[in-house]
């Protein structure tokens, strides 16, 4: 019952958030002069008549509120509009780009969670050991490394030499999963590492600190004094409570992640949502920008609902409400 009510409320809030984001983006981009789009479409030498014709055909001559109303009506009917440039439905473009971006994001997330939590737990349970010191240095290096620099360095230090020596598993660009798991991973492994490195550092630091803090609590001492095995104390009692800040950080990072995807797709030449949205912004392709922003916000909203539900499951002190 509580869960249903929670879900209904969160979904309603989510819809409001999506509306606000769509509206804000719409008006932000509307301040671009309309004839710059038309001029690019019609060509440099186009006469004013041609440009006006293009503006009229795109519906850009109508008052802004009419255009806005039209835009909202279309969304409700599941129509995200059409690209200004080739008339392709925005839905089709998103459907093409989504598998690429999803491959990058999901893989990177799995990688950084596994690495971050594992290193964090090992450092916390062996605080001030050599392993802990090495991982602390690694964390600082990871935090200081800009995503795009790591991507470039990986291309120089891994991709180029390996391919020069005939080892061609690791590739840039994209291979769909339908071509097989192994080629797909070969294309994805460098983007995953690039996107995951900084985040793995953040999560290592967070989970280490959180676990050290938790292991100092009274109930852990109680568990130990009951004669419980150290492994059970750490993994069953300690970790569960220590994970809550990690989970809430995950909710925040999903928004940050979208920026990272933009950079990674640029560096590795993946034509996913990130690269295409940079291009769309460059060319003032408003319908495409709006479609991408909506998909991205939808992703953030849904992920946050999941994170909040997971939060309540992990920590019995948190009630779903």
């Amino acid at each position: 019952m509580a869960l249903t009510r929670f879900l209904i409320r969160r979904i309603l809030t989510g819809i409001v958030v999506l509306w606000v984001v769509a509206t804000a983006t719409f008006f932000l981009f509307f301040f671009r002069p309309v004839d710059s789009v038309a001029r690019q479409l019609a060509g440099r030498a186009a006469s004013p008549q041609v440009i006006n014709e293009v503006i009229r055909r795109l519906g850009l001559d109508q008052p802004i509120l009419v255009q806005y109303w039209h835009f909202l009506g279309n969304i409700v009917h599941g129509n995200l509009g059409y690209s200004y440039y080739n008339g392709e439905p925005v839905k089709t473009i998103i459907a093409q780009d989504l598998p690429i971006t999803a491959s990058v994001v999901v893989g990177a997330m799995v990688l950084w969670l596994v690495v971050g939590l594992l290193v964090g737990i090992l450092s916390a349970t062996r605080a001030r050991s050599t392993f802990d010191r090495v991982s602390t240095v690694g964390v600082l290096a990871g935090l200081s490394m800009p995503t795009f620099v790591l991507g470039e360095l990986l291309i120089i230090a891994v991709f180029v030499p390996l391919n020069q020596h005939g080892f061609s598993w690791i590739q840039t660009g994209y291979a769909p999963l339908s071509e097989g798991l192994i080629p797909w991973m070969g294309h994805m492994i460098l983007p995953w590492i690039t996107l995951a490195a900084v985040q793995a550092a953040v999560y290592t630091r967070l989970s280490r600190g959180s676990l050290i803090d938790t292991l100092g609590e009274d109930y852990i001492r109680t568990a130990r004094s009951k004669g419980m095995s150290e492994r059970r104390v750490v993994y069953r009692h300690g970790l569960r409570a220590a994970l809550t800040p990690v989970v809430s950080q995950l909710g925040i990072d999903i928004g940050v992640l979208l920026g990272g995807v933009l950079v990674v797709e640029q560096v590795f030449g993946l034509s996913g949502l990130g690269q295409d949205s940079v291009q769309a912004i460059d060319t003032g392709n408003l319908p495409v920008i709006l479609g991408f922003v909506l998909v991205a916000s939808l992703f953030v909203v849904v992920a946050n609902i999941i994170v909040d539900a997971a939060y309540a499951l992990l920590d019995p002190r948190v009630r779903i409400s």
Partner: protein
Amino acid sequence: MSVTELEFQASVVEAAPEQAIEGRSQWQLTWRRLRHDKMAVASIVVILIMTVLALLAPVFAAVLHHGEYQAFTGAGLSSAGIPVGPGTHGFPLGTDYVGRDLLVRILYGARISLFVGISTTLMATVAGVGMGLVAGYFGGHVDTVLARFADVVLAFPILVLALALAAIYGPSLLIVLGVITFFSWAGIFRIVRGQTLSVKEKEYIEAARSLGAGPWRIMFIDILPNLLGPVLVLATLYIPTAVVFEATLSFLGIGIPAPTPSWGVILSEAQNYYQVAWWYVVFPALALLITTLAFNLLGDGIRDAMDPRTERLFAARGNRRQRRTRKARPAGPDALPPLTVSELGE
């Protein structure tokens, strides 16, 4: 590094109880501890060297006779039109794709990076501290409006706004400064607001008020000094974030416009030459990495030095080099805790 992570680290410092030992101020104690932290001292030295090199960029350019925009299509490019490597034809770090001196461009890039990093952090700190004090002290509607505003800023996809602004107005240094500042003040605001809320209830504030002190005097003279510690730590850690941010924006073509030699611009241009000119990517990348690492290490060092519990940790470890600082602390029953919260942010 995310904003929450920074706040998290700063909150570790702010949670530290005040300690005054034999008339030594908290700042003196912090400095004493910082001096013994080898990594922190090393990072200060690196930052100073980087600053001096950045300031001396015109001198290097004059000595080498290579201007920052000067393209040497003859000596600077091989016959195939490829950049020449480090050390050839009097180019210490090689050249870039049009035959410009890479060393000179990296040094000029250091000026932009340090300028953007430090100036945006300063502006964000002033804005965050000012608004945080006002929101925390006055409370009520002022507080509600400012706090909601900060929440919105923290939740906004930053890169999208930067892209939009660059698309509308064209990329420029001003937009870079504006965007970075706009998204950096909120973290400092939250820390300052929270601290102000708790400090303003203390007795000495009430005493000041009963002596007739006005709200502005109380905010800036009585409350502010209590907050400088966490703010300093947070600000130090914001500098590398801003440096990376500027480089990323420039790399994507929405930051400092080419041909201005920002590190992000250089790395973006180098993207197409990594197969034939490793130096073109490696040297600017190293400059960026060393700078951000130094500021991160310094921030960590200051945080540890400000935390009185750091000493206990050293003492617990029986570290001989730390004995001088350990003497300052009485050996009480709580002097040797097994592990403390100060471990959190390490």
